């Protein structure tokens, strides 16, 4: 068993406040590194039993009450779950261990699943508590530039949490919005009023940071609902199918549809209960999104697993694609803008790519793998870039840090003449997970805080796992140490579980498999590429963090 380390970090404003996530809890630390507060995101009700004061506090007032109430109904035994009238998509999120077994099993399908899976199902059940908690962990964390708001996404319940920060380290929950698909990256628009949510299914949604009352179930959502009912009527007709058997099943379908209609009526509130506008979409897993500005106009840059970086116009013309930045030969996992006109991307390739994104032109490739081999003892010839962090605090201005999965180093690059140049490697005591830059008022140099995971040998780098590196000339000074907060619930998980949570980027790499294998399943023998399982795989929650 191993405790979960701090994973995601972000700086809150300019007063030296650091926000760090561990499991489903956000911790804030002051400029003096002292712990200020903890804020549990409650997770799914399964993890926070009814009456647990922590979770109850975070429950939101009226408009958001809907979803959380509905979800809390579904906790408890599976029998209860089956009987409850909550719609399928939501159930899947809460009752994730079952959903894992049968990706999109409709209501009442659980019994069947159990029967089919037999012994396997029992095993899953035994693991359920651990798995359920794992699912609600923070998977994304972003703060506004002034630190007044924090957006966190919890994985299992696919919920976007918006929180308010009082400027002194205390967070208050504003809203929880449950997405249909698991978010894979978030960004804030230039005006910091809209959250851009990129999901595993390739779509980008715009959510207002602070939902107003009249936003809930407005036109957009209502239209989506209407469409859903419209779609229920769609299907084949007797002019499109011709064999007797197909015609028979068509009749059967018509009967079922009639029976379903009543049920559908009940499920109406299954749709999104808050404003979310679909902006654009890739037919690929999105891994990264940033909001950019050029000539005073907003743009949205999105990177996907199929090597594309798309440059779209910003709201309200997000449907217009300006160009693509094409050049990667492996997945893209992260993109960033060290300067407004310079895009840097990284992923499964051994280089970082620097782009003139507005023109869609590759400026240069900057070697990374070789440095990892020389200075960080990486063997093998693949690296997976997990994060790129442009630095804008004193002492580190113009630097870009890069970290890779399971590489005990932070690679430092310099932005020079609109291009990227390798500077140095900072070796760290554990695997870096995330980086935040903290500007402490009254100090000449900023801090780089790196969240570290203990390495495979189990050596703990520092009590909290938060490593501080002073930037600029101050590197000789004694770096402050963040304490390991005692309070709160720290989940102890088996090491493989922890690794599954922390290391997800390498899984994006495509495996060299033949079409037959890719198709898998029962159809592969009959036809080259049946490939039924893949959409589930794309949707499946276990695929990513």
């Amino acid at each position, binding site marked *: 068993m191993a405790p979960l380390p701090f994973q995601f970090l972000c700086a809150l404003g300019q007063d030296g406040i650091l926000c760090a996530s561990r499991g489903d809890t956000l911790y804030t630390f002051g400029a003096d590194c002292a712990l200020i507060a903890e804020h549990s995101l409650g997770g799914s009700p399964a993890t926070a039993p009814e009456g647990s004061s922590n979770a109850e506090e975070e429950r939101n007032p009226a408009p958001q009450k809907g979803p959380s109430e509905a979800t809390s109904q579904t906790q408890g035994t599976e029998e209860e779950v089956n009987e409850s009238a909550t719609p399928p998509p939501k159930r899947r999120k809460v009752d994730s261990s079952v959903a894992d077994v049968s990706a*999109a099993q409709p209501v009442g399908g659980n019994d069947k699943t159990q029967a089919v899976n037999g012994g396997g199902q029992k095993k899953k059940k035994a693991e359920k508590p651990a798995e359920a908690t794992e699912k609600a962990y923070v998977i994304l964390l972003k703060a506004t530039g002034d630190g007044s708001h924090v957006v966190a996404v919890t994985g299992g319940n696919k919920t976007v949490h918006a929180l308010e920060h009082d400027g002194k380290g205390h967070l208050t929950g504003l809203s929880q919005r449950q997405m249909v698909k698991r978010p894979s990256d978030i960004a804030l628009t230039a005006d910091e009023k809209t959250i851009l949510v990129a999901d595993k*299914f*390739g*779509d980008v949604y715009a959510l207002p940071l602070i939902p107003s009352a009249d936003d809930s179930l407005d036109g957009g959502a209502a239209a989506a609902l209407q469409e*859903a009912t419209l*779609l*229920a*009527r*769609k*299907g*084949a*007709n007797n*002019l*499109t199918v*011709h064999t007797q058997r197909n015609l028979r099943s068509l009749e059967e379908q018509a009967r079922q549809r009639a029976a379903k209609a009543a049920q559908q009526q009940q499920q109406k509130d299954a749709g999104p209960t808050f404003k979310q506008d*679909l902006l*654009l*979409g*890739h*037919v*690929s897993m999105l891994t990264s999104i940033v909001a950019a500005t050029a000539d005073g*106009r907003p743009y949205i840059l999105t990177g996907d697993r*199929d*090597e*594309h970086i*798309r440059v*779209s*116009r910003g709201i309200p*013309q997000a*449907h*217009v*694609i300006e*160009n*693509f930045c*094409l*050049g*990667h*030969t492996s997945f893209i996992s992260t993109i960033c803008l060290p300067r407004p006109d310079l895009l840097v991307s990284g992923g499964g390739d051994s280089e970082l790519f620097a782009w003139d994104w507005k023109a869609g032109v590759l400026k240069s490739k900057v070697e990374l793998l070789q440095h990892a081999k020389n200075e960080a003892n990486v063997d093998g010839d693949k690296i997976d870039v997990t994060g790129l962090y442009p630095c804008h605090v004193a002492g580190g201005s113009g630097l870009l840090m890069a970290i890779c999965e399971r590489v005990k180093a932070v690679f430092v690059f310099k932005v020079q003449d609109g291009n990227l140049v390798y500077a140095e490697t900072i070796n760290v005591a554990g695997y870096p997970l995330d980086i935040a830059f903290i500007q402490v008022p009254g100090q000449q140099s900023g801090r780089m805080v790196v969240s570290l995971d203990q390495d495979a040998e189990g050596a703990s780098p520092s009590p909290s796992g938060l490593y501080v590196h002073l930037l600029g000339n101050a590197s000789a000074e004694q770096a402050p140490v963040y304490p390991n907060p005692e309070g709160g619930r720290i989940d102890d998980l088996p090491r493989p579980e922890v690794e599954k949570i922390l290391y997800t980027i390498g899984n994006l790499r*495509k*495996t*060299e*498999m*033949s*079409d037959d294998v*890719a*198709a898998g399943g029962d*159809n592969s*023998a*009959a*036809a*080259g*590429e*049946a*490939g*039924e399982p*893949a*959409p589930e795989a*794309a949707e499946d929650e276990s695929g990513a963090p």
Partner: protein
Amino acid sequence: MPGAPNKKQKRADYRLARSQQDGATEMPKKKFYRQRAHANPFSDHQLEYPISPDHMDWAPFFPAYTADPEELPEATASANDDQTAQRQPKRMRQDVEILDIGCGFGGLLVALAPRLPDKLVLGMEIRTQVTEFVQERIRSLRAQHQDSNQFQNVGCLRANTMKFLPNFFKKGQLSKIFICFPDPHFKARKHKARIVSTTLNSEYAYALRPGGIVYTITDVEDLHNWMVHHLELHPSFERVSEAEQESDECVKIMTTETEEGKKVERNKGQKFVALFRRLEDPPW
């Protein structure tokens, strides 16, 4: 499955026999190339696609249209540098302008090619066997029409257009996109796999030049409504009027010459046609 290895063997034999035949004028037989009519567009497959449109080597598909080195002044400069010459694909005298997405067995392609002799027509198909069939078909047609040089302007390659369209085509490169009898994906859960969707339409708009046309035809009324709904909803497209649609020669070809079109005719099914024009992007 019993019989499968046998089928495999027969297919291999057939292909071998064909490949040994020089300048095969005989048309390929469909029965050796059939493949299940559904492919999963989200799966990784083992696709070959260029890193970017500039990396695409069109020469194998349109050998008659490769530019002679003398014709291009820049070519002399690049000839000095052997390495870049090797890496750079051959230049083409013109770009592909007409695309059939999901070309199937290529009925539309071979019907369009002689009618649009000064344009390059490309079919993209996700099923390997079917792609091979169309390539063989084009090879035979070219051999049969050596004197008239017909069918040099048509090609077919395997691709997943839903994922990799921008890898093949530059912005505004295409003037016509055909989407004929696409997989209807009836289940609501599979709607994202449909070839026309709000988000994917942006990519069609990217590859199409303003004024370019998306042609859709299907025998499934619901899918027709779906496609109309999503393309009309997209700010970059407007529906082409009925009258203009009637007068378009390509519509007639699309309705009568595609394999699916013929099959629907045999079964006395309906056909639903809709055309959409790519509008200029709004000022930004």
